[in-house]
């Protein structure tokens, strides 16, 4: 029997922790297409994802989950539509300590939702850092509907990432129940 594949997209602004999230749960080394950061504004880290990150979780012999991380910089947004095609759902990562990126996160969220109206949630990363904004404040800043889940997340911790993925899958089940 041919292996079935499904995908979840991890998106969010530059340096929000998308690659790290995928790395935490992927069974393969994340295939990352990184490039030295060129813009001064984005010099908070040395390299950034320019095409996509790619992680894999093999469920069983005939089902594989792929995790795709989108490039975080706006100039690569031409990739977003391609990556969003056929996705099961998506995770919008935000850096809880960098409110200057919230506006962009909101824009990315709406863009992805327009491409594919699949379930999604917001993962508020770096909640272990002292400057992290409260989840409730981030919800207000992102103008998130009360029905949209926003979860505290630490992308480098596998347990935290598992919770995020599970919550997204629960949302997908809920949507399926509503539709059938």
């Amino acid at each position: 029997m041919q292996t079935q594949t499904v995908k979840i997209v991890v998106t969010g602004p530059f340096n929000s922790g998308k690659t790290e999230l995928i790395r935490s749960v992927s069974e393969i080394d994340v295939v990352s297409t990184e490039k030295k950061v060129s813009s001064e504004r984005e010099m908070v880290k040395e390299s950034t994802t320019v095409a996509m990150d790619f992680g894999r979780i093999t469920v069983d012999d005939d089902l594989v989950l792929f995790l795709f991380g989108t490039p975080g910089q706006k100039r690569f947004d031409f990739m977003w539509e391609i990556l969003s095609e056929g996705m099961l759902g998506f995770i919008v990562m935000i850096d809880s300590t960098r409110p200057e990126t919230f506006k962009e996160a909101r824009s990315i969220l709406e863009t992805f939702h327009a491409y594919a109206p699949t379930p999604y949630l917001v993962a508020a990363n770096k909640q272990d850092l002292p400057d992290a904004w409260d989840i409730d404040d981030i919800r207000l800043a992102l103008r998130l509907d009360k029905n949209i889940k926003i979860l505290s997340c630490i992308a480098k911790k596998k347990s935290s990432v598992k919770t995020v993925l599970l919550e997204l899958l629960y949302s997908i089940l809920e949507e399926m129940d509503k539709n059938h």
Partner: protein
Amino acid sequence: MALKGNIRDFSILQLLNLINLATKTGALYVEGPESNSRVVFRDGKLSFAEFSENGKQLLQQLVEHEALSATQVAPIAARHATPNDKEMGIFLLNAGYLSQEQILSTLEQVYADVVRQLFSWQEGFFHFETGELTPVEKIPVRLDLENLIIEGARQTQELEELKSELPSLEMALKFTDRPGMNIRDVNLSVEEWRVVNYVNPKNTIQQIAKATQLNDLEIRRVVYALLQAGLVELVRASGAPAVLPQKMFPTKDPVEQKSLVNRLINKIRSI
């Protein structure tokens, strides 16, 4: 070489800049998705502009810009009905209704408004007919383009910012569930009230824009203000396609789809 293309690739602002710098004479035709326009330039200055489907006559333009009242215009239109704006202009001058300056300054506003509306167009084929002048029956003006270009640059920047706040006009709006809030107590502009009348999860923002005759920039401006004020929130339009797109799953069978998600859940729990 012919000056033609799509404003998606070469914007109205860039075209105006080129016409201004090259002091061109000719007519710029733009075919938008819902409207067509003609803008005529002479020696790099704005001479005439109109939307072809609602080409208005001088009397109507003067009333709309409050240079003449409707009461003044009714007997003039009855006695001197002419489609020729130049003839009408001469009559208005000779009869002492308006001065030449008043007529020309009103027309400058009319033509500049057409160009301002063009700034918000994102898509449309254009071609420039070199040497074509203002139609003989119309009154030309000589308006410098610099101020319009600066205005257009500001408008373009604002549109870019609003687009990053509100990327899709296919979303709908609904009133926020805030206890104690009464929209009647809020001071809204006329445009905001017009949009508020159509707030309903069934109407996309695009549909509201069409119903209220607001262009891309205007509707985004109004919706952004309403969102910032916390009066409305974005929702998926209720008439939009089913929540779950077809391609999400490798199978179309709902039972298999559910089983697939449950297998994923079990796997992730076990990692």
